[in-house]
């Protein structure tokens, strides 16, 4: 009984294994069919005829390099622009005629104002000055108006030809013009 059962179990396992193998084979076959391609003898020719011209791998760098070069040249020109001066003319040599001409030109020219070349000495700091308060009590007394010169009008014919013309002295009242008239400051 057991041997019969074992035999049927073995046959069943064998059949199951066979079906599994057949299923695996079917899966492999179908999968390979799904990626199968038909022969196309002219495809290579089509590909080759559609190939573009080969270019250098660095060709794409050309525009960038050109732009960088232009910027570098512009920067170089800009930085050296201020230092660029025209070439100096050759100074005249101190030979005979040139020396005479130079001396004449110096002699003919007027002397100019001498320019200060020495540095100025540093000024000492000035003391601060306090403003003076007005001393109204001892201020100058008001000055009387100067007497007007009284010259009588006369015609030229009235002037004596021989006598000197005398003019009366100008009388000026007390005018405190001396230092003694000022009071001492406290």
């Amino acid at each position, binding site marked *: 009984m057991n041997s019969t059962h074992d035999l049927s179990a073995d046959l069943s396992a064998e059949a199951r294994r066979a079906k599994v193998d057949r299923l695996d084979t079917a899966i*492999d076959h*179908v999968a390979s069919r799904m990626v199968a391609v038909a022969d196309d003898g002219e495809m290579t020719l089509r590909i*080759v005829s*559609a190939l573009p011209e080969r270019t250098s791998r660095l060709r794409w760098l050309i525009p960038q390099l050109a732009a960088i070069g232009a910027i570098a040249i512009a920067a170089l020109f800009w930085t050296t622009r201020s230092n660029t001066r025209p070439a100096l003319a050759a100074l005249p040599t101190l030979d005979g005629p040139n020396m005479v001409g130079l001396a004449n030109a110096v002699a003919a020219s007027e002397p100019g104002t001498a320019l200060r070349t020495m540095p100025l000495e540093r000024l000492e700091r000035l003391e601060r000055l306090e403003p003076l308060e007005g001393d109204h009590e001892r201020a100058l007394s008001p000055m009387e108006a100067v007497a007007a010169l009284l010259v009588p009008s006369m015609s030229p014919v009235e002037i004596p030809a021989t006598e000197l013309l005398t003019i009366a002295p100008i009388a000026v009242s007390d005018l405190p013009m001396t230092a003694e008239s000022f009071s001492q400051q406290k």
Partner: protein
Amino acid sequence: MLTLAAADEPRADPEVVHLVALARTGDRAAFGELIERHLTAARRVALAAVGQPSDADEAVQEASVAAWRRLDGLHDANAFRGWFLRIVWRKAIDRRRSVRSWFDRFSSSTADDQRPMEFVAAEATPDQILISRELAAAIAQVVRSLPRKLRDPFLLAASGDHRYEDIAAMLGAPLGTVKWRIAEARRVIRMKLDHMGHGDPR
């Protein structure tokens, strides 16, 4: 199980190096020969990404032009194949993401779904043929419904052109992740087929 390409490292091929050197000088014929050598693999890679042969061929053309332009960026001439296929994959992914491709796929999805799968055993009876065609259609439907993270490595592996390492490089994913995704894709396919009545009778 899926048949993967040989796992040995790409050997130095003097002819490839020579062709790459010629192509770098502008030799179109040399570049065409390089493309011709890997054209089928490139078309399969693109087809795995976009699902439509016409889109796949356009992606391969765009990738070829891109490779032609970037040929100076290829440091190791012997690595041309992997380098070119990675460009193809990226171009195909770009095309898959484009709105136009979505519209095209949507409009032609019905015809593509009904593309006959020639999965018939040599000694199959008429009933087996019918079942096999049903099974093939069911498998194709399940594979298309897989998430992209599972479907992409699964279909790339199904092409039989690439090693796991190549697939990982193309997808930009770790090798272990790629292996897990392929196994997971197979598990999900089997589970869905089981739900559809085509699975393993337990």
